């Protein structure tokens, strides 16, 4: 691996991410899977870093799950998105930040489609007006929440209580990053670091003391794949994808996985248990599996939040061995008390 080559590519895919004044939209499934992550994000940017991130209870799903499951037409999803933009416009914001990768990908796709087919955009404006009597401005800047955390990574590092290093030997933890298909695979220029060697999570890990390991199936889907997971008959495919990734990363002996997407941490985490049951294989060096985190959770950990406050008890793969490795203090008894 030639690091300079990667750096060269990273330098070609940099975004001018604004630091402040965002309209924040949540993810449908993260609110259920990892509710603490979004809460923490807002807490960190608002309280720790004193930034302006607005959110409203009026926003809805972006329609992405339905869209990718082929159950609603393009115009419908575009009108839903147009309504979100209208909420942003009404709130007086110009920067739009999505917590969900699929939403981010969908917004990017819709904005690009409108760019190439302006008549479609006017049609959607018309639909939105007819249905909700709302009007909207397109966001001046569209970000994914990880872009913001990437932008703020050094500020977070400045306030960090822990580093991603093994307290026993001082060696950086080996971290596997999983970027989520919809982040930059569709529009490489919209992701930090591009699509082939994305930098958004790598940048965070580097800033917080860890070391990223690259592995052959890094680019591979986590296994969610919408139709693959949602339909039970296809669920084996979902599982197989995850299995493939773990088989590929196992020789690199990673300490943890950091993820970018709502579905990925869920599948990378839960499927480890299913693979153990089906195949008898447990990944990870200590036989406890490889713990999987959202980037917000990792940020929270280095900032010194209580692991149970971060919702890590919601994970299937136990996180305690890793916490011990870093030296994060926690109270065993309180795990399920919160």
């Amino acid at each position, binding site marked *: 691996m*030639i690091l300079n*080559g990667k750096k*060269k*590519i990273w330098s070609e895919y940099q975004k001018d991410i604004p630091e402040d004044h965002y309209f924040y939209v949540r993810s449908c499934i993260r609110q259920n899977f990892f509710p603490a992550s979004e809460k923490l994000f807002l807490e960190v940017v608002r309280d720790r870093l004193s930034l302006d991130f607005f959110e409203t209870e009026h926003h809805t799903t972006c329609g992405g799950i339905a869209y990718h499951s082929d159950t609603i037409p393009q115009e419908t999803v575009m009108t839903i998105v147009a309504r979100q933009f209208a909420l942003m416009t009404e709130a007086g914001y110009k920067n739009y930040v999505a917590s969900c990768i699929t939403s981010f990908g969908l917004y990017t796709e819709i904005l690009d489609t409108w760019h190439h087919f302006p008549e479609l955009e006017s049609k959607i404006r018309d639909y939105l007006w007819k249905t909700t009597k709302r009007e909207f401005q397109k966001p001046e800047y569209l970000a994914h929440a990880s872009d913001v955390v990437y932008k703020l990574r050094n500020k977070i590092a400045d306030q960090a209580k822990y580093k991603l290093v093994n307290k026993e030997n001082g060696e950086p933890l080996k971290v596997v990053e999983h970027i989520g298909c919809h982040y930059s695979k569709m529009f490489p220029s919209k992701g930090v670091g591009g*699509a082939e060697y994305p930098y958004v999570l790598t940048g965070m890990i580097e800033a917080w003391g860890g070391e990223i390991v690259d592995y*052959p199936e890094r680019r591979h889907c986590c296994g969610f794949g919408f139709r693959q997971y949602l339909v039970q008959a296809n669920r084996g495919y979902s599982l197989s994808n995850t299995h493939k990734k773990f088989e590929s990363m196992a020789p690199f002996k990673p300490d943890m996985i950091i993820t970018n997407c709502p579905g990925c941490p869920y599948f990378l985490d839960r499927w480890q248990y299913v693979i153990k049951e089906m195949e008898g294989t447990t990944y990870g060096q200590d036989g406890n599996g490889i713990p999987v985190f959202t980037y917000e959770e990792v940020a929270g950990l280095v900032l010194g939040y209580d692991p149970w406050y971060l919702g890590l008890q919601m994970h299937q793969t136990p996180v305690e061995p890793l916490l011990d490795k870093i030296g994060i203090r926690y109270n065993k008894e309180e795990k399920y008390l919160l």
Partner: protein
Amino acid sequence: MNKEVLVIGGGPAGIECANSLISLGYKVFIVEKCSEPGGHLRKWDRLFPYGVSASDTLDKLLQKSGKAIFFYDTEVQTINQVDEKFVITLSDDTQLHVSSIVVATGFTLFPAAKKEEYGYGIYNGVITNADLEDGFKTHKKELFKANRVGFVHCVGSRDEKVCNRHCSKVCCVTAVKQACEYKDLNPDAEVYCFYMDLRMFGRGYEDLYLKAQNKYGIRFIRGRVSEVAEDVNGCLVVKAEDTLTSRPLKVTLDLLVLMSGMSKNDDNDKIADMLGIKTEEDGFLSLPEPTLNNCQTVTDGVFLAGSVTGPKTLPETLNEARAAALSVHKYLSR
């Protein structure tokens, strides 16, 4: 009308054009942006399909060009047309007055790093055809120790995503040639060629392909490589589809050679602009009569030769260079 002609580009096309012009009694200036003549040919070791030495070929071309006046490390700065003459200013401020101009600026080798998924410049084992050729030429022994080698055809060719929809024409046979040469140097190596179509259009090419299959046992896999990664041992994990069986395919290799194609010369737009001629969508210079006359432009007295108008083999380029010289002669003898 003086008998002075400017040839832009000191590669095979420019040299051979100059040779022909000299023998027709013209005085020729060659402007070359590098410090040596020969263009890409200088960097090559052997030529397909017969394995002729590239440096011998270049030497033979240069033998006849003694009377040409070379300007090295020099580019054309401005061109002004005064009556029927061209006044040229070079980057070293030299001024030339010529009656005709031949553009023989050739092509730019596709920068393989642009195909990020192949990891050129990122993975140690990924090199380009030019790197391998350099290895052949300079006997880089460590390059020939790899026991599992892959050749990826069409890197930067037939690929709209990198703005090259065209076929670079010579890469297929170059890959086959290099694969055979590699096997000569390391007979134990398993060699794979990943191709989309094998365009063995020239005399002797198909024979070379057959030899590659039959004698060297090179495995040809029909499918474009999708992505490359490094495994824990630093070997390359290469993925493609074997389109002949409609199955995804994976192979672990030690060395991967990317067959970088011929892109338009980066200077084409600038030169076209100076000469009042156009480029096509593919970036190569346009030909008003692409079938009847491969050298002609819309500007009187300006002619084209070689891969400045699209990917070409060396013999084609040389023929075109001679044809351009004749066109100049015809133009100046009118």
